[in-house]
């Protein structure tokens, strides 16, 4: 298979994730969309790794996974606190940090 197919799929996934981050209101949905973006990038990393016959890309994928895990831990904790305090999961309701 040509690398181009992987990259197109990766770009599609990344775009879907980006649109989801911007358009979705639910915290959990945004969170999932961010995961989608990260994994779209992971996909292109491994595709390039295989294509270039180098291991760097695969190592980067592990780094991204670690970061994603940490982000999931912090993000879900924030989500829980948000729900406890505001009784909502809508990000638009958490907008007091402004001018």
């Amino acid at each position, binding site marked *: 298979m040509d690398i181009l197919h992987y990259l197109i799929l990766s770009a599609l996934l990344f775009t879907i994730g*980006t649109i989801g*981050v*911007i*358009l*979705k*209101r639910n915290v959990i949905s*945004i969170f999932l969309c961010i995961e989608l973006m990260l994994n779209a990038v992971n996909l292109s990393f491994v595709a390039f790794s295989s294509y270039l016959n180098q291991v760097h890309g695969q190592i980067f994928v592990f780094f991204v996974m670690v970061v994603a895990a940490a982000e999931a831990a912090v993000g879900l904790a924030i989500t829980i606190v948000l729900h406890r305090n505001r009784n909502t999961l809508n*990000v*638009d309701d*958490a*907008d*007091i*940090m*402004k*001018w």
Partner: protein
Amino acid sequence: MIDYLWIIPLLPLAGSAINGLLGKRLPKTVISIIACGTAGFAFLIAIGAVMDLIRLAPGERHIVRYFFTWIASGDFVAKAEFLLDPLSAVMLLVVTGVGFIIHVYSIGYMHAEDGYYRFFSYMNLFLFSMLILILSDNFLLMFVGWEGVGLCSYLLIGYYFDRRSAGDAGKKAFVVNRIGDVGFVLGIFLIFVTFNSLDFGEVFRQIAAGEVRFPVETGVGTLTAIGLLLFVGATGKSAQIPLHVWLPDAMEGPTPVSALIHAATMVTAGVYMVVRCSPIFSRATVALEVVTVIGIVTALFAATIGLVQTDIKRVLAYSTISQLGYMFAAAGVGAFSAGIFHLMTHAFFKALLFLGAGSAIHALGGEQDLMRMGGLRKYTLVTHSTMFTAALAISGIFPFAGFFSKDAILWSAWANGHPLVWLAGLLTAGLTAFYMFRLIFLAFYGKERFSAEARHHLHESPPSMTVPLMVLATLSIVGGFVGLPAWLEMGPNQFFEFLEPSLALAYHPEHAELSHNVEMGFAGISVLVAIIGISIAYWLYVVRPGSAEALAERMRGLYKLLLRKYYVDEIYDAALVNPTVTGSRETLWNGIDVGVVDGAVNGIGRAIHASAGVLKNVQNGLVRSYAAWILLGAVAVLFYIYMLR
């Protein structure tokens, strides 16, 4: 005693420091002893030093004492050096002597005033500055003293600082003097550029030896420029036209200040400076002519104003301006020693007139208006008799001090070929005699015009005031005998002989020798004119009181013109003061400061505020919008990297 020359100025400085720093806690007796003691000891040492000087041969009477190098920068060296020669010796004795007498007088005059210590601290500081001025051996040190006396003058004019008019008068004196000082400083710069030195000895030697390219200048040249610039300084300090306006207002200060600073010593500093620079002036013909014209015009001009003033101190102030004009005219016609002679005698009788006026004011509890005096003769015997003496002296009646000095000036004017100056001087002498006796007659003769309340505590002044009056009266009588004119057939004029070494480097033009009989005749004419002036005053104010008012009514326009002092203050207000004030307020303040400076600062603030008002909407707290902005930014960066580079 010459070795102790440095102590003379330091004594008053020490007195000033002690009284200024500790005076608030000291009793008045101690303050008086410190102030008068330092002045008195300075006088004694000055006498000793001058005695030593006289013991030397005339050619060697030029003592320079070096103390330390004040500034040394490349070629430029300013030394702290004192010069004692006949000229500074005369000034030294006048300043310390008259200064001491006036200090003693002040004890009585100022005894009830607040800030007694402040007054004496300033007076001592003034003596110090004045001594630096006259003893300095270079232009820079002279300028230090010059500014020092200006400062003390300002402080003492504004002594009653709770009175607005006193504060204004102080500021006026200060500002007008600064205008003159600009000329003086420029003159000093020009001297340094031309001669590469500021020492009197070196500068005058170069001029006299003709080393610096100019012989006697007939037109405009460097020496003329130097002379004119120095003279600008002298007009400021010595209150000559057009910078005379500060001196009458300076009468806001206490009377002893008027006597010491604004009559006897400081205002004569300009004359001293011109005479000291006689090697420059005598070779700069144009500058010398300017000195003559300004001097004699000032003399006549101020004398006419003095005719109609009713404030006793203002009459004396205009008289001072007029007499200073005489001295400048003397220097201008080349009779430098006659100018200094008049400076000395004038210091005696004008200080006496001021102190006497102060005594009369004191007796009446602060009344200065001549129209509310009258008949004081019966109550203040000493004041009256001493002031009468001084009036005779200033009028130039033989054999009082003023006769000899004034006659020397008038005679020099005629003999050196300035008949117009002589005529104007003669006219001024007549006017002087008139206004001075007008003052005497109005204050001491005729009906008593003061209030019943004033009569109640009318008293002769205490001895600390009357004794100085008597001492000065004695000096006003005998002071002229040091310079008996040659026509008395008692040998040459001793005073002029004494001053001769100081003027040796001046350029002396040749003049025809006129016989002594002619000179005696001219002396007779000036005495006659003075007697006419006195007689008119006697007629108008004693024989026919009230006729002066009738005369004023008949010549209303002229009277008003004189009373308003030729409208000089009004002209200055209209031409200089108001445009400056209005221009500052409308253009500099409301225009440039408020408009441009404040406008720029506020404008920047307002611009930031406005742009922030737009940009703050970006930070709306909505996470999704932030995400969108990040996306937009990333796209923009990528677009730039891949499309535009």
